[in-house]
């Protein structure tokens, strides 16, 4: 847990919306270590999504730097960022964003076809508990199941890190817990770094570290010695 995977230095992001400027991030500093389960907590508008998007190479900071290991993302052009996302990052969104025209298995294959070192599709589906439903189309799956397919899809290309934006936001308590369990399992058995952003404080208890974000600044960082089992999280 010693090696730094992601490191941000004085990140700032200013959005110009017409005549108004919104400062979504102000000098945000953060290190994420390999194999960590990190939760970024903050109310809506605190800059969590902006931070996640910048780390994921979907957005660029106005000021400051982001390093992935020793590579600075600011040095990458559009193609470089695409390659970075393809090789290193798995995204999971609140709304699952599966391709409706492809079965669960095919949604995974879509990604593994273009990865250099993918995991076995059926094994990953087994890991998220959906081996039996591999040939179902998204419309034939429940929300929780769809989100687990989305997790599997993110994992299948064997990235270094999963970035999850409110992964349980659209799910009820029970199905949400299943998804969190799957994330934890992937973190532990596959050693993937997982970064979850949420406004749901209960989820933070399952992390190794929790980062509090407020008004675009990193307000506090807390290390949790004994993370709670996701089964026992209530909200």
């Amino acid at each position: 847990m010693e090696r730094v995977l992601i490191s941000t230095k004085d990140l700032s992001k200013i959005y110009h919306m017409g005549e108004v400027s919104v400062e979504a991030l102000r000098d945000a500093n953060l290190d994420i270590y390999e194999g960590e389960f990190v939760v970024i907590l903050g109310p809506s508008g605190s800059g969590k999504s902006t931070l996640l998007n910048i780390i994921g190479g979907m957005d660029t900071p106005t000021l400051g730097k982001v390093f992935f290991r020793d590579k600075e993302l600011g040095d990458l052009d559009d193609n470089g960022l695409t390659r970075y996302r393809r090789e290193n990052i798995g995204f999971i969104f609140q709304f699952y964003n599966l391709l409706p025209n492809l079965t669960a298995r095919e949604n995974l294959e879509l990604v593994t076809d273009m990865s250099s070192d993918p995991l076995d599709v059926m094994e990953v589906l087994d890991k998220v508990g959906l081996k039996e439903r591999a040939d179902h189309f998204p419309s034939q799956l429940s929300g929780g199941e769809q989100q687990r397919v989305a997790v599997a899809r993110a994992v299948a290309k064997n990235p270094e890190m999963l970035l999850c934006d409110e992964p349980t936001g659209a799910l009820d308590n029970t199905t949400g817990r299943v998804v969190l369990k799957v994330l934890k399992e992937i973190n532990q058995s596959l050693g993937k770094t997982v970064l979850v952003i949420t406004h749901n404080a209960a989820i933070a208890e399952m992390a190794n570290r929790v980062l509090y974000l407020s008004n675009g600044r990193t307000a506090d960082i807390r290390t949790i010695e004994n993370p709670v089992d996701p089964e026992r999280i209530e909200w």
Partner: protein
Amino acid sequence: MNKLRLMTLRDINSNKGQYIAVILVVVIGITLYNAVLMSYQSLSNSIEYYYEEYRLPHLFAKFIRSSESIVAAAERIDGVAAAQGRLVLDVPMELPGFDDKIQARFVSVPASNDNALNRLYLEEGRYVSGSFHEAALVDKLFMEAHDLETGSTLYPIINGKKIQIVIAGKAVSPEYIYPVPSSRELMPDNERFTIIYLEHGFMQQLFGYEGMVNEVVVRLKDEALTGEIKKELEYAFKHYGLISVGERDDQASYMMMDNELMGLEAMGYSYPMIFLLIGSIVIYMLLLRLVDNQRRQIGVLMALGFTKRAILFHYQGYALFVGFAGSILGGLLGIWLSGSLTRYYLVFFNVPVLQVKIYASVIIIGIVLSVVFCGIAGLNAAKRVLRIAPAEAMRPMAPVEGKKWWGERILPFLARLKISWRLTFRNMWRNKKRTLFTLFAIAMTVGLMISILMLLDSVELLFDKAFGDALSYDYKINFTRDVHRGIIEDLGEFREISSVEPIAEYPFRLKNGWRQKETLVTGIQRGSALYGLFDLNGNRTDVPVEGILLTEGLAKSLGVKPGDTIMLESLYKPETEQQVVVKGLVEQYMGGSGFMEIGSLIRAMKEGSTINSALIKIRHGSLGFVKELEDMAYVQSVKEPDDMVKQYNEYMDIMYAYIGVIVAMSCIMGFAIIYNTTTISIMERKRELASLRIMGFTNNQVAEIIFNENTAVSILGLLVGMPLGRLIGAQIIEFYPEDVMTLPLVVFPKTYIIAAATVALFVILAQLANMRRISRMDLVEVMKSRE
């Protein structure tokens, strides 16, 4: 401004590219419609006016030679408004500085032009004087082709003597709007054929026809009486050396103009309809997408209290906007184009009173057509608004139901394709309607292109057949009059001639019961090496010893098949009917349409062994000899088969112009269609495509998915469009009058290849034009929104 209207305009403004593309398709259709129909109206009205004002006769009675007293007899027939006797005689003519021999048609005209039939329009100079000085009025196009002026001298050879005649002026007659000697000639040759008008009495003297005429032209009180009075004339002049009584439709220029106008009118309606139909399909697809995309907005409008009808009209407004904008632009462009198109006709046609007008009725009908087409498309797309319940509209659309399509179940290999291709086919299946519409639109584009390009193929094949396989002679000699067959032996004596064959071409009336047809019957010798005939399977065939071969078209209009007997009546010798057996059908693309062994043809004429043409092949390096031949006393003209090709190509210019315009417009349309479907695909699947980008697909990989869909639809469209084009082309060729020429139905592979390459090109262009939409997609923004 009404806020809904404002929304419409702003929406259109923010999707300019798409609306411009649809408007373009409509503009094309309406431009074509206006240009062609206005040209049609201008030409047709001008010609109608010209025929009436300049008194084109209704009937043309031809005689071998007859006393002038028959004119009065004709005038006495009830229903005849005026009759005029005249001489029409063709003689060879020389022109200093011009090597080829000219066929000059001398036509006698009354001393006064005022009440004449076929009144002349004097372009310059003065009316005929009746003496050698200022004797002749000459056809305008001929004078222009040779840079002749009033006062120039002509040297016709009349009764074997070269005579000098001074030109009094430049004139045109309603009888020769399209100046060809007979309907056997397809194209005017203004260098080698002309019409020269002389004062009647003067011409009689000059040609030795004192007191005689060889034509009586008749104008009727009522055109409807044509058939009836034609019969009366035939009966009355039976014993006066009558050859035939022709109607306007039998007259070369009238017939050609009629065909030209009919073709123009048909074109004015058919092609624009196709463009409008496709334009409305594109609008339909565009609006379907718009309504789906703006579901939530529709919900908000409903919640605010707008009626469904108001919202329906709001969306209908987009289509009407396209319809109006397209038809007004198209109207303006059409007016401009029709001016040049109409003037272009003057290169070929003698229409002195041509009035190029703007026809408001055409423009208004164009606008109505466009608005109706677009409006119906818009209404059909917008009516899905009616199915939306306000509360439901506020919620996102139910997720698309993914499923495998039947193709994957039936053809298992489809299920094993690369994922991106599987995705392509499923998307096509998911959007069946759009796939079908796009397919149809591309098929029509391809069909349009092929249908018009194949005309070129047909003409090429026609020439290949007619001048490559069928006619292997070097020159055709037309004699000034019937000559004894022995002339062939004389010609054979010339060292320069390697082979020579006689040809007899005479007009006959072919009858089968009440059906009859006047046509040229060609007599050729058995086993001819210079004139080839082909049966319907394309195999070489020969004239039978007895009996006649007919072209398919002629056999059809006579209602006969091989083995049937028909009556053959020489137009030169009425009442010399004889029976002949139809021995077979042949392909013939130009000229006459009956073929007999020359001996039996001559026997049917019941005249000595005379012929009127000969085909020759000459030895190498004997070109100077052709000049010698031309100068021989009994030779009227020496023509190369190539001359016809050259003439035809000149005439084809106007056809090329049309072909060019339609091909260019098809390309623009094809681009507009693909561009729009691509845009719609991208906008509809923004979220899908954005997820792919986030997962690490490059812009090009994302584009490939859209591109695959275009490729697949385009290939299908091409496959449907190819036979469709052939079908449309067959209709056009069918429409082409058979009397003039029979175009073979053929599409060369190169035409298909050109069509395929063009489709490929506009697919690629449309794709490139849309790349920006993919590369500029704001991933964060797209993923944030729920819908």
